[in-house]
């Protein structure tokens, strides 16, 4: 039984359907990448999992628990934590307050102090910037806060939506190293990325999305060598 089991879901913005009969599985402890171009439905998929978008048909099951009708706050409490595209920090709050808000759910709140220490160990830069307002940070630091805030919720699955978006190459490397460390510490990661090379090289498996459908899936190492992936996403 996979940890997260998505079975033939349809998702639409009003009349415009974006995701068609999409199925996807994530096993415990895996790092899974979802790759695809703009408008393929990658972010929409994560938004549907975290309850921000209604699922029109099909089902999403997490740890034997049907979650496709639950509001986002309940899904967080169950352990699926979504770090949204564009980071979406709380700009006028300090770095520490941003992190503490991440631990709002009942499960995480009691351990917030210990989790904060662990997050500071993983991302020491945040400890230095603790009392600074989030809006004054650089893009890379903001992404670290966003990931740290996600970790504060004690995720079983951490969903990252384009963590490398808008960052300089040297920072991108750092972010992916952090993601790898998080996975190595036992958190399951589901990641949406446009930086196909980096994300596949640290993933166990990958899915390729095109026009709201899964067109390819398999081991990350196989996908990276696939001629279609090479041509369409790696530009080789």
């Amino acid at each position: 039984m996979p940890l997260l089991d998505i079975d033939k879901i349809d998702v639409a913005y009003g009349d415009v359907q974006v995701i068609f009969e999409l199925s996807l599985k994530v096993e415990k402890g895996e790092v899974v990448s979802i790759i695809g171009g703009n408008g393929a439905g990658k972010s929409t998929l994560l938004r549907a999992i975290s309850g921000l978008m209604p699922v029109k048909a099909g089902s999403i099951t997490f740890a034997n628990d049907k979650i496709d009708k639950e509001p986002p706050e309940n899904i967080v409490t169950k352990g699926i934590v979504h770090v949204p595209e564009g980071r979406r920090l709380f700009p006028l709050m300090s770095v520490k307050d941003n992190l503490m808000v991440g631990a709002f759910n009942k499960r995480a709140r009691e351990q917030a102090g210990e989790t904060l220490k662990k997050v500071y160990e993983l991302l020491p830069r945040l400890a230095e910037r603790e009392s600074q307002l989030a809006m004054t940070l650089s893009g890379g630091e903001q992404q670290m806060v966003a990931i740290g805030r996600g970790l504060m919720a004690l995720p079983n699955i951490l969903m990252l939506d384009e963590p490398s978006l808008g960052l300089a190459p040297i920072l991108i490397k750092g972010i992916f190293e952090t993601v790898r460390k998080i996975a190595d510490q036992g958190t399951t990661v589901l990641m949406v990325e446009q930086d196909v090379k980096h994300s596949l090289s640290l993933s166990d498996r990958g899915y390729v999305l095109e026009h709201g459908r899964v067109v390819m899936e398999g081991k990350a190492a196989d996908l990276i060598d696939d001629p279609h992936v090479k041509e369409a996403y790696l530009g080789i």
Partner: protein
Amino acid sequence: MLYIIEDTINGILMGSIYGLTAMGLTIIFGVLKVINFAHGSMLMVGMYVTYWAVTLTGINPYLAIVIVAPVMFFFGYYLQDIVIKPIFIAEKNVREPITVIIVTTGIWYILDNLTLLIFGPQYRSLADNPWRSKMLEFGDLFISVPKLYGCIIAIVTAAAIYWFFQKTSMGRAIRATSMDREAASLQGINQYKIYNLAFGIGSATAGIAAVTLVPFNNVFPTVGVLFDIKGFIIVVLGGLGSIGGALVGGIIVGLIESVGPQFMTATWTEAIVYGLFLVVLFVKPSGLFGQKHDW
């Protein structure tokens, strides 16, 4: 000269009470992004609750806070939960839900007229009330005692709310929701529960303001309107959403109203208040202490 000092002091005292009446407005706007046109009516309801609490039980009108604040908290909490929340849910995808403003206007009319129907139009004031015209005398200087108490309560209330928002987990959740409600829901925060809470806190603040007003102000069904318009001006002056800003905005209005008549006909002070309001809107639309957070 002495008059000016006296007027300055009384202006600051009355102004901080104005600030307290507007504080709930700024809290509710800060979180729900909606101007609550029923705020004056909630203040009026608070004044009636205070009046009856004192009249029926005979307790000290300032001690009535322990009754009025919780009653008004639940009043606001359930008003939002039952009447306003359904509109929010229906308008889920709208960034600034205008219909909610219309609903609060409806609540204003309903509350005012319901009060008129139940309690009649007469002006009520506390029977044998020793505070009404009590003065502290420093030589030739007179300071109104109920206004002094009001000022102290206003400052303590502002400090307590500020502390709650900065230092508690629920306060942080409220601030987070005010900045980005979708991102807040991804942290496990139920947006509508936060709205209920913010409305409850705003309403409780109106209740506390009502307690400070009743000892020297008459209670009648349309009393809220007097403070409504002033409240809007104050929160714009101080910056929508800023608690300290409401206090400072209130004091500015109080000072103009109280010191102004020394130099000009009293009716002109109102023109100055509105003039200042316009100048702030032109020069610094986010108000004196308002922070822009759209990046």
